[in-house]
């Protein structure tokens, strides 16, 4: 996949993280989730999502390592896709007969939701709120020969 198209594939945002602590009447507001912030992306960054086939994503990573000439790639997963990102990294390692090494990092990503008021007298301001979600960044690399 070319670099230009990849930002269009968003990491999946799980819906379960709506905390009940926020006071919200479901009739009054429509919830719209914005996409997570995009980050500048190198060629060896792979953002894992839940929509694309697992095998295809695995094959893409494999291709980057074998034919793409990259010594290391970064697999990123957000929310629900964390599992899948870990899975991909482990599969890559297993298929390389121990040649590949992993280094995992976790982080927290801030996500933005829009709340649009549906009230009839239309005095409500649209609200935005932020919530946090977990993300994982796994570096898959060939260790240096020394």
């Amino acid at each position, binding site marked *: 996949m070319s670099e*230009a*198209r990849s*930002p*269009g594939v*968003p990491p999946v945002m799980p*819906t379960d993280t709506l905390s009940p602590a926020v006071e919200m009447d*479901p009739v009054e507001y429509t919830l*719209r*989730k*914005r*996409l997570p*912030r*995009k*980050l*500048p992306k190198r060629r060896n960054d792979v953002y894992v999502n839940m*929509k694309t086939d697992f095998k295809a994503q695995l094959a893409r990573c494999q291709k980057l390592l074998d034919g793409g000439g990259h010594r290391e790639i970064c697999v990123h997963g957000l929310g629900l896709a964390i599992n899948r990102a870990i899975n991909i990294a482990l599969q890559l390692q297993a298929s390389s007969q121990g040649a590949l090494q992993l280094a995992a990092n976790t982080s927290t990503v*801030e996500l*933005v939701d*829009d709340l*649009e*008021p*549906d009230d*009839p007298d*239309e*005095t*409500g*301001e*649209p609200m*935005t709120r*932020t919530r946090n979600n977990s993300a994982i960044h796994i570096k898959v690399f060939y260790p240096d020969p020394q």
Partner: protein
Amino acid sequence: MDNTKKMSDAKARRREIKLKNQPTNVQYPVNVESSPHFTGNGGSTQRCPGPHHGWVRGHQKDGGYSKGMPRYINAGSFARARASEVQAMVKAVRKKTASCHLFAALPKHMRRRAMSHNTKRLPRRLQEMAMKLKEKNLQGVKKKKEQSKQKSRKARRRHGNLLLEFNRRQRKNIWLETHIWHAKRFHMVKKWGYCIGDRPTYKCYRPCYRAMSSHCLLQDLSYYCCIELLGEEETLLSALAQLISKDTGPSFASAVCLSGRRQGNVTVYRAGQYPSQPLGPVTFLWRPRAQVSNRRQLWIWAHPTLKRDLVAELQKVCDCSEPVIPVVEPVAQPAKVPSSEDTKELPNLITVVQGISGTKRKRSCMDQSGPPAKKILGDGTRSPTTPVTWTSNSSATVINDLTMEIVRYRLIGPLSHTVLTETLEVATSCETLAKSASSLWWPEYCKDESKMNLHKEQSDIFHILKGVYSSGEIPPGTVLGLNVDDPRVALPRKKVKALPSVKQVQVVEEERVKQLMLNGVPERCCQSSLWDSSVRDNVTENKIPEQELNHMKHEVLVPGSRLRPTPHQGRVPVLLVHQPGKQVGHEMGTWGAGWDILLPKGWGMAFWVPLVYRGVREGGLHMSLKHSQNKCAPHFPHDYPDCPAGVRFQEEQEAELLDKFKRRPPAKRTNYIKLGCLAPFRCPWKQLAEEWEVISAEERMESRDTDTVIEGATSHQDVTSMPQRFTVLRNRKALRLLSGWCRPTTSKGQRACRLSQAPPLNQAAVSSFLSAHSMSLVWVRLSLLAKGKPELHGMVCVPTLEDFKLLKDPQCSGPLEPTHKDHFKSKLKRPKKKSKKVTETAHKVATPTTAKSSSTPGTVFGLWPDPLPSVASHCSRVVLGWITQGDFSLTAGCGEALGFVSVPGLLTTLLKQPIEHRGMLLLRNPTSLHYRFVKVNIEV
């Protein structure tokens, strides 16, 4: 005519040679000797009742040709009869039609090269005639030239003449400011009184899609009409409230739009007519409040097909029927009197003072006769006396028609803000000139301290935009006012692709970006001088012409370096309006988000070319249709069958498709009757809605009869009180309910359903829903499960219970429709024969085609004639609706269609369907017998 009494052998042979090429139907009798005499009956053998005499032409009915010759011939009468023929022959021979006859008269060995050029080469006896001919020819050429009045190409391409010609050509259909740029690269269509680019001449469907999803696509939307409303806030709001209903979503009065921070969308209805008689969708923008007065300014942007109705409605609700006749301004150039027709017809345009003084003088002495052409800016087709402003008697409300006064470009794509930040540079202030008064607006603007503070704030926000990665991250509908430098000054030498700056932004910057993403632009930064008509006019009038700018660039010491300082005329107020991307559905959220840029008129090309130089793709009407299709948003005239503009569009489309269909020979046409497609070129929505209302009412009756017999009377009432018009369901609450009911059975959908706590789908809920929306259609998105590409006017049908069994088999893609029989084929042929006989026996009435159309109107081979039978139950699967747009969707990766289905039809279908297959329908293209499974989505 000397008869040979005796024929020798040699003579016979010669005669044979002579008659070798004789046509067979003119025969010369051989046995001359047996009948030596000819009759002198004038040679007309047809009139002679007896045996045939003389020359016989043509085939005779009574067996072969007459072989006998007349016994005798009367020389006098014979000669007289032949005299006229001979005369005609001689005349024909003498007559010279062209000069070539002259030369042809010479034997071959006397012809010379170039005799027509040099008459001396001819023999002397022919010289005189040749001279005459030559002169005649020359005169003819001269005359022709005078008739055509074609000036030389050089003269035609001269700037003034070219402008005159351009002005003449845009009298009927208005040209946008980027017209010439587009006309060189696009297929242009004349639509809605404008010349608009449809699609580029080069192949770029996928590149354009890629531009929309990963970079930026640029469109010229200047043909959208802007209507300005001025007045007290309360008066305006109360007037506008009649046009809309709050059921359909946020209205003109929604707080965030009213403050001027966001652009809003509404669907406009005729005053107080909701839910029937919609006009169409409009976007609107309030000017942020000024500190002192309560007077507000509102811009309503509408599609040109909807403008006239909208203006009439606005006049009605605002009570603004007093037209203000515009004062015809004298043309700005004092020396020249506008004498030509063009200037008289088009006075409400603004003169662009052309060129620097040197060239101007040169031109004025070159063609003093004609006045210099003026470039049309704004609406050139409007006659000067047409009012564009209406005032109110009772209140202080004013309506202004700002059509073509403001240029609007749309940038679609995640990097459109990057393109903007690269192209536009915030206006540099000019302190040096601040002391003296100036006719330009910018120096005056610079004097005001508060305005300069505002300008600084706005430019700060604009700089923050650079740190944003995607346009979709900005709150939807955000507005930002800005003053920018003339972008032509900083034009790159080569086309470069604008890319986001990868470098890490500072933490402080990061915070501000976050603020912008969360809260949007503060209210005071949405203010712009573009709202002032005086500033707009000033900017338009004082634009530096391209030529002058190039001259200034030419004089820069280092070639290709930036022109510094920017000339004082080059400051333009603009408004940037964020366009939200895809807002419905779960997948590909904010796809197709972007920015609109609003400019004062006259500056179109000055901004277009610099934008193009930042590596954007350019799209036309076709791409805007695809954009809304991928965004799952209805596109204006196409997807509004209940609006007058939509009805008109459908009629035009039908005529166009029918015309195309009729151009094929009947044997090569698709026989839609055999394919079971009643209306391949249009969608009889009204008939569908009526039929389904009856069907659903009957079904409800049945079910009620089984449950309780008490409520029979009320359902009867429902049937009798049938409203006449069908409506498209736009009530948000009702749509949300429907959406929950036909929710596809994915895990995600189920969860959302549980959240919204919709009432379960059952008989009671459906009948209460249908009592309000029995004649409604609803806009749905259909996505195909397997392969297949939906096409225009495909049928959406109800699957039978047996069809669901096919779903388990992955190989089978769907059921088949049995071929229908064409009963009209035989009927269509018979009158054709009759009409032929009629033409033979009696007077020639008309050609068979017109006779056919006149005798049996509307019967075209392969099409079902009017009136149509029941549209719902014509095929083996019951029809629910039709699709209005369908294509392979590159965003979804499968065939996707957008169309309308009847609400009662959909609900009765959903009720009967098993839960695991709920929301599963069939789709069939008009040219196919194959049904394909589709999933229905209604998105709010």
